[in-house]
């Protein structure tokens, strides 16, 4: 009996390996959870885009909101923009973090393509981006009413991402915030 079982050992090992490989097929190594998940949104004090007024953490927190890292040099941001506008029209609170960009170019973009943002933080040097662990635009952070980062999406937010990933969390956080 023992010897017979041993014959199956290679098959069993293969099975285990196959399970791991199968899992690997659906894993995206580019998808890394943010180091800030369930940690407070970093403190900052940066100018608002196109003005001298300063924005800080207190002025942009207090409600469940998306923080969208974007720039005019970012091609995918242009792809994403119409959908953000649509979300804003549906009443989703979106703040912009204009990441390592020129103010004039960014303002021109908003004028031309529409402005879905409640306010835009002008992160010209990328310091807030660094504290957030941003490594490329676009990135979108879901922040709860207590100012905690709850999710980060790297890449374009489109309808699929919104309905399958962000919306369930957003709704849940909204419920928590009011409850």
């Amino acid at each position: 009996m023992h010897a017979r079982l041993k014959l199956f050992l290679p098959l069993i090992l293969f099975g285990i390996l196959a399970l791991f490989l199968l899992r690997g097929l659906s894993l995206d190594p580019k998808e890394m959870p943010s180091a800030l998940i369930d940690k407070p949104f970093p403190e900052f004090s940066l100018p608002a885009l196109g003005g001298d007024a300063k924005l800080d953490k207190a002025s942009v927190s207090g409600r469940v909101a998306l923080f969208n890292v974007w720039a005019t040099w970012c091609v995918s941001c242009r792809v994403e923009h119409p959908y953000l506008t649509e979300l804003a029209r549906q009443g989703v609170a979106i703040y912009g973090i204009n990441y390592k960009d020129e103010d004039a170019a960014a303002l021109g973009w908003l004028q031309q393509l529409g402005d879905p943002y409640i306010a835009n933080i002008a992160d010209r040097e990328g310091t807030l981006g660094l504290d957030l662990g941003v490594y490329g635009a676009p990135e979108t952070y879901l922040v709860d009413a207590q100012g905690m980062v709850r999710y980060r999406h790297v890449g374009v937010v489109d309808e699929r991402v919104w309905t399958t990933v962000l919306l369930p969390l957003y709704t849940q956080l909204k419920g928590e915030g009011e409850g």
Partner: protein
Amino acid sequence: MNMRALLQWLLAMGCLVLPLQALSVIETYEFSDPALASRYQELSGELRCPKCQNQNIADSNAPIAQDLRKLLHQQLEQGASDEEILQYMVDRYGEFVRYRPRFAGATMLLWLAPGVLLLLGLLIVFLTLRDRKQPGGSEGDLSDADQQRLRELMKKADKE
């Protein structure tokens, strides 16, 4: 004549230096202390570029790697320790940013897996080799009656 030799020499040197310059696309930093420069080399080799993933920040040309190099330079000049700098990076980019993640939590598997797999392999080799010995020595396992039968059969075979 002397002037011409000098010019020739300069031209030759220029030809040697030119290709080097073309390669050095990654910016260089000045350090107040040579010890800082060597720590910079070491740390930038150990920190992983979050964007390009399979390059360290010393080798990568991605904008984020440039930013991190700049930050590394600043922090070294400000007198931060290696531990502080690594912690700062890990706080923002996760354990992922280190090529040698610390031994804790989820990275435990990463550190222990090679050793565990090696032991498992050795165990399999040991068991296989031990089992392989048995068929050779199995003659003694026959009962007396079987031995008797075997001898008779062999005798019979010899006669035929």
